[in-house]
Structures are given as C-alpha cells and as structure tokens.
C-alpha cells in the first residue's frame, strides 16, 4: 500500500518578466489501486503538476510538500524519485538519438531493480510487453522515440509503465493524439498495470473519452493552478456536458 501525498504545492517558472506562479496550492492524495482523473482547460497547470512531481528542472517549488509513503520526494533527484516508485508517462516523450529502445529499457530496468535483469527472462518480458500493446518486435531496435508516430510514442510510454512496475503513475495526456483503436490498446495497458501491481494512477486529461476505458474513482477539476472541484465519476459526465466554462470564468 503506497500513498502519494501532495500538500499546498506551489510552483513557479522563470519567464523574461520574472517568475510566474503556475500552481497556487494543490492538495491531493493518491493511494495504491486508486485512479484519480485531473481534468481542466489548457493552461490550467495540469502538466506543470505532473512535471513538478517528477522533478523537471524547469519548475521551481516555492511551497508545499510532496511525499511518497511519508518520504519527501521534492528533496530527491529525478532518478531517485523514479526509483522510489514514481512514473511519469509524458505527453511529448523525448527523442534520444542513437539509443535503442532495448538498450534504454534494460538500462532503466537495471537502475530500478538494482541489478541487471537476467537476459533470458528479460527478453521474454520485453517481448510480451510489446505484444500486449500490439507493437512489432522490430520496435526494440529503433532509437528511443526517434521517428515514432504519436501513437507509437504513447504505446512506448505505457509499455514502460508495464515493464518498470512503479507504485504511482502520472499519465500526462496519454490520450492526446490517439485514434480510437490506439486509445483502447493504451488504456488496456494502463488497466493491466493497475491490476498487476495495485498501481495508483493520476490521469491528466482534457477529455472524458479515456475515462470510458480507465474508470476513475475520483475526478478533480483543475483551473488556474488549483483544484476547484472534486467528485466521483459523475463529475466527468457533467464536464462532458457543460465544458470548463464555469470554472474558467471564476
């Protein structure tokens, strides 16, 4: 049983006109097995929340705490946070030229497990993770995210989620740019990871369509750097019908 606890989180970014506060005090608790959807309009700070928790250097934490099972995450380097059990599926996964997917995955698994996975079982593990997401085996020999289509990038992210077995996963607009089939395949991967590892999920999205596949236990509406409303799955339906207008105008 793991708990990610966000308390009063305030985050700024540097701009030409000085620092600008993006997150204005966020409180959120995610436990193993729970799925929390964060929904909100563009520019509300959803992605900033994801990247700040993961430790991207662009974001300055100006207040609040983030702990995983009581341990301060904000004090850790990016790789330490991942080794503590945090995973971020990115909206725009980064190309790493000249580094093959298979080399990257093995290096990551070695770092997370503390020892290199046994080659024989590892090859099988990767193969089945790829097959489960309908990815061609030749994928493993391509360079990380280089020349990947939008759908391939997202599958690659969720394949990592299944292989690397984190405690808490933040999915930053994993549904963006996916067609219906890809959305289903990727969503099934998330559900498998949840069931296999009692994963806690923080799902960031604009749209409700992914919530048909990944059922949220809690829905949080994000606007102007904070959570403005919380509820159950029925809140997503209300957003689907009414949009974000009432929150933006506040």
């Amino acid at each position, binding site marked *: 049983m793991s708990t990610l606890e966000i308390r009063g989180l305030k985050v700024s970014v540097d701009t030409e006109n000085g620092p600008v506060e993006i997150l204005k005090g966020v409180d959120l608790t995610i436990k193993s097995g729970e799925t929390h959807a964060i929904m909100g309009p563009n520019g509300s700070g959803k992605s900033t929340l994801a990247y700040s928790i993961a430790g991207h250097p662009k974001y300055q934490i100006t207040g609040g705490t983030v702990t995983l099972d009581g341990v301060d995450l904000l004090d850790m*380097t990016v*790789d330490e946070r*991942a080794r503590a059990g945090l995973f*971020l599926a990115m909206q725009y996964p980064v190309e790493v030229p000249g*580094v093959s997917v298979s080399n990257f995955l093995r290096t*990551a698994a070695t*770092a997370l497990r503390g020892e290199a996975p046994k080659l024989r079982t590892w090859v099988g593990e990767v193969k089945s993770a790829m097959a489960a997401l309908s990815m061609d085996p030749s994928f493993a020999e391509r360079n990380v995210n280089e020349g990947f289509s939008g759908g391939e990038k997202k599958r690659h992210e969720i394949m990592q989620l299944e292989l690397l077995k984190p405690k808490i996963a933040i999915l930053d607009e994993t549904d963006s740019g996916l067609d219906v089939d890809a959305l289903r395949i990727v969503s099934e991967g998330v559900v498998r990871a949840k069931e296999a590892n009692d994963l806690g999920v923080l799902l960031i999205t604009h749209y409700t369509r992914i919530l048909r596949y990944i059922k949220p236990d809690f829905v949080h509406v994000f606007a102007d750097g904070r959570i403005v409303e919380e509820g159950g799955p029925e809140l997503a339906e209300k957003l689907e019908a009414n949009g974000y207008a009432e929150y933006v105008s506040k």
Partner: protein
Amino acid sequence: MSTLTTNYLTPTGREEAWRFTPLKRLGGLHDGTFKLATRNSLALAGSAPAGVSFERIGRELVPAESITDDVIVGRIHEAATEVNVLKIAANTELAEPIALHRLAGGLTDAELSRVQIRIGANAKATLIIENTGDHLIAEDIEIICEPGSNLTVVSLQEWDSKTIHAGRQHAIVDKDATFKSIIVTVGGDVVRILPTVEFKGQGASVELLGVYFATAGQFFEHRMFVDHLVPNAKSRVNYKGALAGQDAHTVWIGDVFIRAAAEGTDTYELNRNLLLSDGARADSVPNLEIETGEIVGAGHASTTGRFDDEQLFYLMSRGIAVEDARRLVVRGFFNEIVSEIGNAEIQDRLMTRIDQELEKAGAQ
C-alpha cells in the same frame, strides 16, 4: 630541413588555413625546424590477402597523383624518398578488412610519411589504419579509386597523449566509384587532418564521416575539401565531436566547391558538436562555393550545443542515474557514425574509449 623549397609557404598563423592551429605545438612540422627521422612506422598487420600488395617503393616510381597547397603535405612530398604503396587488384573482393598499424615511433625526430593506396577497377575492400603510440608524424595518404571500385578507409587516431600528427587523406575518385572515409580522433596532443576529395569521373559517390572527442588541452582539427570537378557526383559529410575540459579545442572546416562543370552535383555536409564542460572550444565552419545552379542539391548544417536537458530528464525519469544518462546520450550521439565502421570489436573499443573520455571529463 631548412633547405626545402617549401619554406616560402611557412605559415604565420594568420592564413585562413592555419588560423585555428596552434603552430607552436606542431613540433616544427610547419616551419621545417624538425629533425627528420629515417623510420617507417606503418606496417601491414598479418599477411596480404590474394590480390593485395603492400610494398615500400622509391618515389621516382610513385609520383604524387595530386597537388597541394598545404605546407606540411608539401614537405612530406619533398622529404619522403620512399612511399608505402598498398594496391588492391582490379575485381578483387575482400570479405575481411585489410589492417595497417603502427610500429614504434618517436617524439624527438619527425617521420614524414608518404602513402599511396590504389584500388583497381570494380574491386571492393575495407582498409583500417590503426594509429597508436606516441609519434611526431606528418603523413600524406593518397587514395586512388579506379572506376567502379568501392573502398572504405577507417582511420583511427587512438594516439597516446604526446603525439603530434599532421597530414592529409586525399581521395581521387573515378567514374562510378564509391569511397567512404571514417576518421576517428580520440587521442594525441595535436592532430590536424585534411580529408580531401577530388572527383575524377561522373557517377562517383563519397561519404566523409568522422568522430572526435577532445579532452583538456587536446587540439583536433579536421579540415575537409570536397572538389566537385565533374558532373553527377554525390558527396556526404557528417562529423560529430564532443569536447570536455579546459582548453579542449576542435576545429571542423567543411569546404565544398561545386565547379561550373559539375552539373548534377548532390552534396550535403553536417557537423555537430557536444560541449560537455566549460573551457572547451569548438570551431565549426561549413563553406559551400557554387559555380553552377544546375545541381541536385547542396546544403550544410552545423550545430554546437550542450547536453539536452530534456533527454537527460526523460532518461532520469526512468530511474537512470545522471552519469548513466549522460553516457547513454553521448554513446547515442556517436553511435550513428561509429556503427558505420562495421567491425564489432573496433566499435566496442571506441565506445569504451568514449566512456573513458567522458569519465575523465566528469572528474574535472
């Protein structure tokens, strides 16, 4: 060596071709103040396969096939009374690479070495030149590719730390021939190589590839000149370098000349540099001169940058420690070219060397 007629070419450092080079560190190769050594350090590894000969021949029988305005190459042509001649007979196809390597060298006197490589019509071969040890050496390698031949030359500068190496690798590429050069410079104090190409026949294709990694105090210069004299030839240049440490300095010059007669030319050159620390300097100067508009394409690109923070963040967000993430990124950066060598043992050795250079840099 002060009686040489090339003395009038002695550079002052203000010349375009010499403005980056630390002349004082050239061991007198540029101004003729060196003591001439009698040694010949270049040797064939193993025995010559069928269709291949490697001999040392008096220069009267091996006239230079090219001219030069480089003072050091000029001094080599004047001083070298014998020439190492490697010949690959026409129609020979070699499955295994030919390897040349270095015998003992020296730093108190200078070896001025002339080499001529000739691949016969429709022959196919790979040559690997492994440069190791500490040498004070100037070397001119003429590479003559006869019609329809296909030659890859891999030149590895894995010199020890005191080496001074200046020279040229000049390819004369005839009709429908394919020439690929891979120049790797990871060792030495001062290395200055001129990879130059002269197209002699139509339909020829040339690739000049290179990687270099300079750490504190090292100076590595690679100065291409690709001369499109004839129509319908293709050239590609791709050099990648990394630098780390105080006064690490690299120079890449890419001169491509498309003459009026060279219609149908297709050329692209690229240089990328990765600056891994403060105090290092990468000079990168692409230069296209075009005398005809009737070409397929001509372009160039040059970038010099630091580690991409987004790449490091992505890798680290998967639990990979920063040192390992950097190593992956640097290996990946070089992999595009190193993988072209086509020899697993050499590729592994170079990647290990690159890891070591990076570790050295990290310790600073």
